[in-house]
């Protein structure tokens, strides 16, 4: 393989999104998932009220926080899942489909998050 002949790629940008998303996911998701996914539904801790959550979500800082919370980890997923499928399944002819599925999905989620936070 002739590495010098490669045309410049966007790989660095994707990798940057991947690692930024990795940090956000590592720091923020465990506590959110623990509370909303386990502690509240199982009654270990008291649920915050609808009104309180809505007022929280409507503050500009929380909107920014929630946007980052949704967008970056999705791009983290896109990068990791793409390479898992590339290496795991070894289906070279499907690589473009995988790429579109992963980053298209991440982009769709990001747009949805922006839309929801805009309207909330």
């Amino acid at each position, binding site marked *: 393989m002739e590495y010098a002949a490669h045309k410049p790629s966007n790989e660095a940008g994707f990798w940057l999104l991947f690692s930024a998303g990795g940090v956000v996911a590592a720091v923020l*998701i465990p506590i959110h998932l623990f509370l909303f996914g386990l502690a509240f539904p199982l009654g270990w801790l008291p649920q915050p009220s609808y009104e309180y959550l809505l007022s929280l979500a409507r503050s500009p800082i929380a909107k920014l926080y929630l946007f980052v919370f949704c967008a970056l980890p999705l791009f983290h997923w896109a990068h990791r*899942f793409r390479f898992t499928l590339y290496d795991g399944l070894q289906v070279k002819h499907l690589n473009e489909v995988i790429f579109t599925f992963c980053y298209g999905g991440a982009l769709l989620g990001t747009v949805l998050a922006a839309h929801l936070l805009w309207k909330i």
Partner: protein
Amino acid sequence: MSTQAAPAEFHPRWFRKRVSTWWWLGEWHYLKFILRELSSIAVAWFVVLTLFQLRALLHGAEAYARFTLRLQSPLMIALNAIAFCFVLFHTITWFNLAPRAMPVRMGGKRVPEFLVAAPNYALWVVVSVFVGWLLLRTP
């Protein structure tokens, strides 16, 4: 590599064994690698759940009550319990990776890995406590 010439005519093809699809099952290191990669599915799962939660919040108190009720189903609890394990695995492997990706040197000596990873864990605890406090306080 550029030193490897293209096979000439009638040259036997380069020998390259096809790797099995299940190559990662044999050894703990490989399995750990794949589990770490699969943790990204748990990450995406929870983001999607958060998007549904935002949608429910947007649609009003009744919609939100339905959302919380759905989260109480045994299936959702099970899925979230599995996702939580994967996300924790991601957090720990991610934090422990930092000192490998970015070796810190002080006075010509390499700072021990646990000291480089420690601030990550500290940040994690502080942020988690803050988020927990914000969601649990009764205004």
